[in-house]
């Protein structure tokens, strides 16, 4: 069953057709990759999904409810978490505090005036944060200031912050961009493990074909804002139109 369904979405920036009649269904418990050359409209589509952009026409329905016109924080509260191209974390705070914030957000909603309670006494939340940290092998870094960590660790922290909220859909915007080979491999392994253990639904935008083909169940290829083709990874690899538009120079 499709948990996220995008129908006939159009978005123009002045004279540029950024998205033209995009249709997309993300099925529960699958990983759906969106690929395409630079300027194909991948990021625009993602921004529509998280409420940062409102399309000119079309509908985006998540779990039976429209997400259009909702604020990013409302869409997160519906169960969509997003990992950014450059890790967006709370750089001045410790790793543990970074983890506690999404825990509180999940439990208390968009705002709660919990000014007198002590963080030390939030045993449940601390436990939850710790178990997530150990799942991504970062428990030993819990007291580190987030800004002091390596790029790969920041990425893992950001994913842990998203996952600790038990999202129903995880959106990943080029999660391995700018990463060293080893970090990329680690990230793929991490995502695979998490999927296996949690049955997570993911939508991923990615340039690295290695990442896409090792994770995705379905792939949508965008070109110049239009969905070119949607199919399984095996069929995409051999598809002549895709080769022509996008994979021509890549070694597939």
């Amino acid at each position, binding site marked *: 069953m499709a948990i996220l369904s995008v129908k006939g979405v159009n978005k123009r920036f002045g004279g540029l057709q950024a998205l033209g009649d995009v249709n997309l269904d993300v099925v529960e418990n699958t990983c759906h990759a969106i690929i395409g050359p630079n300027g194909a409209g991948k990021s625009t589509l993602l921004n529509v999904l998280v409420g940062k952009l409102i399309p000119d026409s079309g509908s985006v329905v998540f779990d039976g409810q429209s997400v259009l016109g909702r604020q990013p924080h409302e869409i*997160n509260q519906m169960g969509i978490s997003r990992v950014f191209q450059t890790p*967006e974390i*709370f750089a*001045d705070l410790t790793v543990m505090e970074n983890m506690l914030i999404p825990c509180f957000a999940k439990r208390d909603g968009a*705002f709660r005036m919990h*000014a*007198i309670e002590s*963080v030390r006494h939030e045993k449940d939340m601390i436990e939850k944060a710790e178990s997530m940290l150990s799942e991504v092998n970062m428990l030993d870094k819990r007291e580190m200031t987030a800004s002091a960590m390596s790029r790969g660790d920041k990425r893992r922290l950001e994913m842990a*912050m998203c996952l600790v909220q038990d999202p129903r859909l995880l959106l990943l915007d080029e999660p391995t961009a700018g990463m060293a080979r080893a970090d990329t491999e680690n990230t793929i392994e991490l995502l695979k493990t998490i999927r296996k253990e949690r049955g997570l639904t993911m939508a991923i935008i990615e340039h690295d074909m290695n990442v896409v083909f090792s994770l995705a169940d379905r792939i949508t290829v965008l070109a110049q804002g239009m969905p070119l083709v949607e199919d399984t990874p095996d069929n995409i690899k051999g598809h002549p139109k895709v080769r022509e538009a996008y994979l021509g120079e890549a070694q597939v």
Partner: protein
Amino acid sequence: MLGLDKKDSTLMLVVIGLVIFAPFLLNPFPEGSAMAQFNAGYPDLMQRFVIFGILAIGFNILFGLTGYLSFGHAAFLGVGSYAAIWSLKLFTLNVIPAILFAIIVGGFFAWVIGKISLKRSGIYFSILTLAFAQMSFAMAYSVLTPLTGGETGLQIKNTDNPLIGGPTDGSIGRANLFGAEMGNSFELNLGNWVFTFNLGYYIAALAMIAAFYLSIRIFRSPFGIMLRAVKSNQNRMNYTGLTPKVYTLYAFVISGMYAGLAGGLMVAMDTQVGPERMFWTASGEIVIMTILGGAGTLIGPVLGAGSIKYMENILSKINKDVLHQWFAFLPDGLEDAMVVFADIFVGKQWHFTLGIVFMLVVIFLPGGLVEGAQRLSARFGRKKKTDTTDTAASTPAE
């Protein structure tokens, strides 16, 4: 103790001790000695120490945690003062309702101004708050004269007839706490030393202790973490399902209530208020106090407020005659030269000294006086525990 961990409890106890024994600690020099002018243990100045301490603690909850620099906090101090004086004039001369009223009005005013100013962030937010405060000042000075007494401000008059318990003999009423007047003092003579214990000071001190305790609780709460998250990354907050603007607004209102409390206490002590209390230089002073002491630290704002008020009241009293006495041991020509040179830094020119100190602190100790103290204690070999809760206390503001 009271829900604080060991380290915070120690800090709390130290502050309580300092505040209670301030009449002794601030009067180290015997009466009549040459150093007596450095004594700060008189009621008027001690009251100012704790009241401005409250103001800076409240400002720090907004600026130190969320990073939003309000340049109009004196407005809340002012409206709190006006609210308190009207309570004294019309309702009762008891200071408790006056102070509560000041807190409520300060908080409400902050909610209105915050709601509008928080549409913007960064420098635009600062400018908006500055504009609101200057507007409040201008209105208190002119069109709102019936409410504010205009240029002359408001005092308690012998024509005032409060609802509860005003004076019946036509004398001017005095602010009191269930009959005990704020000006009541007990003087303790020990040899050449005179220590003054003033009721008004201890009431203000009690308020500061409560304010400080609440600020520790906020720093250590989930709400406190959210406020630091606002400073760190609002984008991530949005995508984590949180509303940074609402959190900031609540921080703004809380710090407005602190300012209202300070304003109410000022009126309780000297039963008068004028519009100059809302002037932009007063707002600037709050910012300087907080940064000088260490924004984002627990104790910094109190230290900053104390040092500025000390300089304002003690340095400014040193005039040329005093300087001549100090340098009397030098040969005549040299004495005059020294007096002329030293006079640049004291008396009416004390702002110059403040400016130099502030510049030195900002350049060499971006974490304020607290960072200075931390470096000193590190240098003298005292092992610093790396405590998890320490991060909030040692993260300097940008």
